[in-house]
């Protein structure tokens, strides 16, 4: 594996972007397959496209059942080695096709989501088992019924935390099937398309409902509620916040409210909004966004810079809005000033945005 990793590093110029590393992996795989297909065409066609019913290449001498009474079914060291070799090849094929799927599974997690190690290991093992079963059952109705009976007797049920995990498991089964019916070409295409589609949907956050708040917006209420009215620690630690679920943060915020009511201190929060910027060029984006913030907000502070691998980096600013400049105007101003440098800008605001004090001071981030 270190060798493979080293070759991928060379091809991708040590890039950490998943798409580049995936492309490099598949390029290496394609080269190996092409070389193997050149030197061992029969073996490769046996595992890559046999299930598709290939047309035989060139003349084939048929068995004479009269001079060999075993009607062509021969059993010996040669046939045994042939079966063993085919089995090894289809299992290896399934393994090399499922490996990048596990990498994608581990990389393309939703923000803050952790992958499940059990699922990763299942993804690796499942296609091998499925391939073995299908290879054995192939073309035998009797064996298929037997298998159904055996599987029916074994009950296994588990609940997956994320419904997307189920799709990975399905893909794992597809790759196993393709290997089992000796049609690894189909498995390869399915695996490649799946990986790239998944990476792209993850990269562009495909499917977000534009009418619904963004994933980060669900934090606006707890963020606002947890803002201390004392002026110190206006926005709680973001990492701490995001380690909670929104429901737990809400519960925590309710508790803060009760404590605040008990103490009786009412003071405006220093910041009332969180500005979320995504960008591929952090330095330029930071400079241009901060110019706009200087001009259009009462005060702001850079809260966090998150550098992502394979997708745009993220900047989080704590902002106090001016009454005269509402949310949309501020976003339009940011886009006008830094449109080229940023991928997206989003502003989560709380009720405390209604500020009437006309405070002019600014904190430079």
């Amino acid at each position, binding site marked *: 594996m270190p060798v493979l990793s080293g070759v991928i590093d060379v091809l991708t110029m040590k890039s950490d972007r998943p798409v580049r590393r995936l492309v490099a992996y598949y390029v290496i795989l394609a080269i190996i397959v092409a070389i193997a297909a*050149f*030197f*061992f*065409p*029969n073996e490769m066609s046996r595992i890559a496209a046999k299930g598709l*019913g*290939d*047309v*035989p*290449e*060139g*003349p*084939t*001498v*048929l*068995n*004479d*059942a*009269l*001079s060999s009474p075993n*009607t*062509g*079914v021969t059993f010996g060291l040669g046939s045994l080695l042939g079966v063993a070799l085919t089995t090894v090849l289809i299992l290896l094929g399934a393994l090399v096709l499922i490996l990048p799927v596990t990498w994608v599974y581990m990389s393309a997690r939703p923000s803050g989501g952790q992958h499940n190690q059990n699922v990763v290991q299942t993804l690796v093992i499942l296609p091998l088992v499925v391939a073995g079963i299908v290879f054995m059952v192939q*073309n035998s109705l009797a064996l298929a019924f037997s298998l159904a009976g055996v599987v029916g007797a074994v009950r296994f049920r588990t609940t997956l935390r994320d419904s997307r995990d189920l799709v990975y498991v399905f893909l794992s089964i597809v790759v196993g099937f393709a290997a089992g019916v000796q049609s690894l070409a189909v498995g390869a295409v399915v695996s490649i398309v799946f990986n790239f589609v998944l990476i792209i949907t993850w990269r562009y956050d495909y499917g977000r409902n534009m009418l619904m708040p963004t994933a980060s917006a669900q934090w606006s209420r707890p963020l606002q509620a947890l803002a201390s009215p004392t002026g110190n620690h206006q926005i709680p630690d973001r990492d701490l916040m995001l380690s909670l679920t929104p429901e737990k943060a809400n519960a925590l915020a309710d508790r803060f409210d009760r404590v605040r009511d008990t103490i009786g201190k009412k003071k405006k929060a220093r910041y009332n909004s969180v500005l979320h910027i995504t960008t591929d060029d952090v330095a330029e984006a930071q400079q241009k966004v901060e110019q706009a913030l200087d001009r259009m907000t009462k005060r702001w502070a850079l809260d966090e810079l998150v550098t992502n691998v394979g997708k745009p980096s993220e900047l989080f600013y704590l902002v106090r809005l001016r009454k005269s400049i509402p949310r949309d105007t501020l976003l339009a101003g940011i886009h006008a000033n830094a449109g080229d440098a940023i991928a997206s800008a989003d502003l989560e605001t709380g009720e405390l945005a209604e500020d009437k004090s006309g405070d002019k001071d600014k904190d430079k981030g």
Partner: protein
Amino acid sequence: MIGARGLVLLAGLSPWVAACRETPGAKAAEVQAVEATRKQELARRLALADASPAKSLPVAKWIMPPELREISGLTLTSRGTVLTHDDNIGRVYEVDPKTGILLKGFSLEGGVRGDFEAITIAGSDIYLLESKGKIFKFKEGADASQVPYSVFDTRLGKECEFEGLAYEADSTRFVMVCKKIRGKNETHELLIYRLPLPLDRATMSTLRVPSEDVIGSNKWKGFHPSDINIDPITKNYVLVASREKGLLVMTPDGNVVRSEPLPDGHHQPEGVAITRDSILIVSDEANVKPPAITLYRWRR
């Protein structure tokens, strides 16, 4: 750059690599050697069969490769080879029945799928019959090629489940045999459709033969033909039945010449052909046994 050690490694591997890489010349030489040996062996076996009083001894039985597990109809080419086809995919194979060499395989364009039941040759065209009465017409293709095709629908699919197709060169017409008349549990007649060339539904006619004539003295409950072909010498129709494992010979007028069980050893006879030098060829689809083509001396 390849270093000295790399060159040594490559030099060491080269004979092994050359051995692994199949050379077409070596393969062709091997096939030619087998061909010559088998022709001699077949001549010897035919002479033995001619001298033997037992009529049902096979002279050769070729086990077909897994690709032909769904082998169905047979038809003779002018070269003395037979064309056969896959049951589910529009794919045709050429086999030399006298040497057991699979010569080539080609497919209909686009890998067309269907329930193909019979094949025949008329002039330079090849015709495949689907069980619902569709006839696919195409030219012979090179090995591993795909050929364009056209389709003629007899629109008889609702009336009959077709299993056999043959071409009567003398009267330039197809004969299509019906395995089962749809809507009837048990048919009391053998139904054959005749379709002259050029293909036109308006010129179609039928031949009906009572079941009792077909069954004769056999203990069959009916006769469900799985293929039909023409004896090139007598021009009689020769039919095989998969369910009854029987053989029927009848004149084009519908008079039964003989009906008899096939020799033992046929698990699912799906195709029949007769050569000019009097060899009966029967193909068997795979079930518990592998697909096979069996040759007998044909006695008229």
